[in-house]
Structures are given as C-alpha cells and as structure tokens.
C-alpha cells in the first residue's frame, strides 16, 4: 500500500532549497550517531525522502539505520536560521546515481551562494560542501512526522503535514 504523502508544498520547497542538513540515528544501545547531509530529493509522490551522505563520515549512522531503522533529519536555512526536523523509518541505502549526484552538485552551488552574503568565505563554503561522487551514499526513508525546529519556544511542535492515518 502506498504510504500517505505527508510533505506539504511548503516543507518540500524548504528542504530542497539551500539548507544545511544534519542527520541523526541511534543504535540499540541508544547512543546517538550523526552525519551531514549533502542534498535532499523528495520522490514525486512525496512518500520517500532521499538524503545524500558522505560514506566516510557516516559509518556509525549507516550502521545504526540498518540495525535500528530510525532516522531524524534537521534542515536549517542559514540566512534565517529557520529549521524543520523530519523523523521517519523504512530506511534504505544505495549508491548515489547520476541523478542523485546532480542533486548534490546543485545543492552545493545553492548552499555556497546562500552563505556568501552572510559573510562566510567562499573557501570555507566550498570546502564545507565538498564530497566525492564515489563517497556519496543515498539514504532514503519514509517521513512520519515533521516538526517546526526554528530555535525558540515553538521548536519541536509537530506541523500539520504529518501522518494522520
């Protein structure tokens, strides 16, 4: 059965723009693990989100999502520090394909352009987004809940575009 799409138009637009992406999971020992995201792609029916990670940075997290199948990802727009967190399950891993690598390259360009006006150096921004194609892993999951995560009293509030079924 097709999972209900929970990603609203606003959420979709936000997570695919020049946001910083950080991902967390944990093992059966409940110790958290993290990794950076280098791009985000949402399936046409919005039932799956694919994040691109650096294999060499994400060893523990890749292990944890396979064993524990829980994931949380936070997306933050540097210009405003507004942020969303999406939690989900049904994680699958694969090599990044050509289309995925194009998403990663596009995201890096957008991110660099987005942080330069904030006073960051180009050398920093490009170094921060650097990822080799052979080191790129595609991690897909089914989103279950979307949270407002902009720092403030409203952080952690579930947004309406969550699974209600």
């Amino acid at each position, binding site marked *: 059965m097709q999972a209900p799409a929970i990603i609203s138009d606003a959420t979709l637009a936000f997570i695919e723009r020049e946001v*910083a992406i*950080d*991902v*967390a*999971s*944990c093992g*059966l020992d*409940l*110790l*958290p*693990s*993290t990794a*950076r995201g280098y791009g985000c792609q949402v399936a046409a029916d919005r039932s799956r989100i694919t994040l691109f990670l650096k294999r*060499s*940075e994400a060893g523990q997290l890749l292990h944890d999502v396979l064993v*524990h199948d*829980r*994931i*949380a*990802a*936070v997306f*933050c727009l*540097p210009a405003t*520090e507004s*942020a969303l*967190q999406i*939690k989900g399950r049904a994680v699958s891993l694969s090599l990044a394909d050509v289309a995925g690598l194009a998403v990663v390259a596009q995201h890096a360009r957008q991110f660099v352009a987005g942080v330069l006006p904030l006073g*960051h*150096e180009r*050398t*920093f*921004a*490009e*170094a*921060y*987004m*650097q990822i080799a194609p052979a080191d790129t892993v595609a991690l897909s999951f089914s989103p279950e809940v979307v949270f407002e*995560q902009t*720092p*403030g*009293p409203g*952080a*952690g509030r579930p947004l309406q575009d969550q699974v209600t079924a």
Partner: protein
Amino acid sequence: MSVDITGLRHCMEGAIPSPIATCALDGTPNIAYLSQVQYVDACHIALTFQFFNKTRQNILQHPHAVVKVVDPHSGSSYRLHARYLRTETSGPLFEKMKAKLAGIASHTGMVGIFKLQGADVYEVNKVEAFVSAAQLPPQPSPAACLPTLRDASNRLNGSGDLDDLFDTLLTVLRELYAIDHAMVLKLDEARECLFTVASAGYAQAGIGSEIPLGHGVIGVAARERTPIRISHMTSEYMYGKAVRASAAAQGLQQQLETAIPLPGLEQCRSQLAVPILAGSELYGVLYVESPQDLRFGYDDEDALQTLANQFGWMARGMACQAAVEPAAAAGHSLPAPPLPELGDSLVQVRYFAADHSVFLNDDYLIKGVAGAIFWKLVHCYCAEQRRQFSNRELRLMPDLGLPEISDNLEARLVLLQRRLQERQACVQMLKTGRGRFVLQVSQPLLPVAEG
C-alpha cells in the same frame, strides 16, 4: 576517558550553528540546533537550556549526545560525543552564557524570547574529526599569540607608576591587539560600583563615570569575577543608557556619578569585559568593544585576562609601595615648574560637603573621594600657597576621610588628574616624581564651601 577540545574553541564562536543529536528511551533519535556551545575547559562544554524541549527531555532520561562544531575557516567539522553532567543556574558560567545569549537573541531577532534557564554542562569523551580536504592558506598556530603576549607583558612591566600603568595598558591594546576602544574601571568597594579611571578611543573620555556592580557587561564581569564576552549588538547588556535605567529602577542612581556620561560606542557589536584581579581580590574591570560582530574570540579573552591579572598585581603593588614608602625616600623629585601668570578671571571652587561634589564656577568637576581630595588641595593652595604634595601626606590627612583601602587613593588621584586634564581645568596636577605632584594653577581661585 577524557579528550582535549582546547584546539576547537574557535569552532564554538557561533559562526556556524551546531546541531545536537540525542535519543529518547524508546529509541527515537532527535536532532536540533543549539543557540550556543560554550567551551568550559579541555574536556567540558556547556549548552544553553532555554526551553523544555525534546533535547532536554532526552538528556535528562539518557544523558548521551553528539554535538557537531565546524571550523568557520576551513570547513572541517568535529563531532563531540558528550555526556550530560549537570545544569548550573547561577554563577560565572551561567552569567557568561546569559550575556552571550543576549547578544545572539538580539542578532537573531529573538529578544524577549531567548532566556537562559540554565547552563547544561557536558563532559566530552570522544571527538571525531572530519578534516576538510580544501587547500586553504595556513592559519597562525595558537602559540603564535605568545610572543605578542610576552611583548605586552614586558611593556606593562616597565610602567613606572599607576598613571603610567593605565596608559601602558591602553597603548598595548591599541598597538599590539588593534583594539581601539577600551576603558579601565576601578572598583569602589564601599559603594559597590566601578569608576572609569582611563579610556581610549572615545570622543568623551568619561573619566569618573560610574557603573554599579552587577549592571551591564562590565558590572556582571565584576560581580561574577569572570570574563563576559558578547559577539553581537545587544541592548540588554549596553553599559550606558540601559545600565543607568536599571540602576534607576533599583533606586541606585542617587549614589552614582551621573553627571559624567559613560564613554561608549553608539553601534557596539562586540564587547569583552575581563575582571582585573590580584589573587582573589577584585581591583576593577578592563573593558574593550568594537563596532564589528565577532571581533573578540577565546584567544583575545585569554590574552586580556592574563594582562588584567598582571595589571591587578602591579596596581596593588604600586599602591602598597606608595603606602609604606617614606616621603623622603620616594625617589627623585623634579622641581615644581614656575606658576604661570594668573589670568584675570576669578574662578570660584564651589564645594558641597554632602557628597563632596566640586564645581568650577558652574561647571561640574567631580564628587566623592576625588572631590574631597581636590577641595583639600585647593584649600592648601589658597590658604598656605602650597603647590607641591605627596600621595603619602594625602593618605595621612585625617580630615579627608579616605577609604581604608590604599589603592583607592592612588586610583582616585589618577582619576582626578585625568579629569582635570580632560576638562582643561584652570587647575592641573603635574607629576614631579613617584608619588609627588604639583598644582599648576592658571586662574586665581576662590574656595566657596556651599554647605
């Protein structure tokens, strides 16, 4: 097992927001951004607790977290695996983070929303480094600041007296640290306030202006005896208008010097106040500011605190030496310069005994201990035609009612000398030797005791 995170301090200036990952007891991960990661020591960090959110629920139940910090120059990132230990709700660490958060709140439009409830202290037990492969120009090593610090320390060490020490500190900050706006304040123990003795980089020097203990960035640094550093503009910790307003609200304004405005930048974006300590005793506060965001880092804080410690001991030592040194042995004394021909206009020196305030005609000069000293000097000059004085004899004058703490006299004399200079008053105090000075009077004086 502990690690050393000292080399990562520059990644904790807030240039790149840090995410924290935690885990609920049911195995659900959570990841959110932090307002602030504060370096505490080689193996501890502190994080802001502002709201009872999911992160906080998780760490109270299961105290393990992963915090990412990023080098804002190289793009290298570091994962700190940390264990929550405790929450501090008062004291130096709390105040340091509260002040910094006020700057962040102001910078991010969160004034009135961001309020620090506690400083959550974590022990870092593992660091994973992901070093950027980018080809970047090399950064100076942390040790590169040591020769500068040594130079600064040597120059302070060469100060001949307290007046010189104040000037040397401000010169060192400007020449070696490119800090153009600075002031040095002395603690008045009895009145629980700080008074400005020296400043640099302001249109009005503000010598003699006062700040109550615990108010603004300077007052908090003094009360908590800890450096307070803010990297963005914030009205909450402005030491000028806001300090006056909060002091007024607490009924303190009557006790404060309010006629002399505090110096300060209109558009101050970075502030650093470090306590000047001699052992456990607070001497005063060194304060620097800048119109740039993120101007002062952890290394600046270290350097200024080290210099302030040296300053504290030197100032204390100079005051003690002056207190015990016999006048005859106080070193070589220059002859008093000839008195210039007095001008035609008589200047009334008006003295109000209630608060020891002094006016030259209708122009306010100073009050308090410095006012009482000035009145005494003018009285001796007019009644006995005396112009030469020693710090030591002033200390021994019973009718001055000086505070028992000797460094207050020395600092008050420096303050008075500078205030007269700033006002281009018709009376000036010129040094003629260590602990000695002469009055240089350019107009005839008429002392008037007003009550």
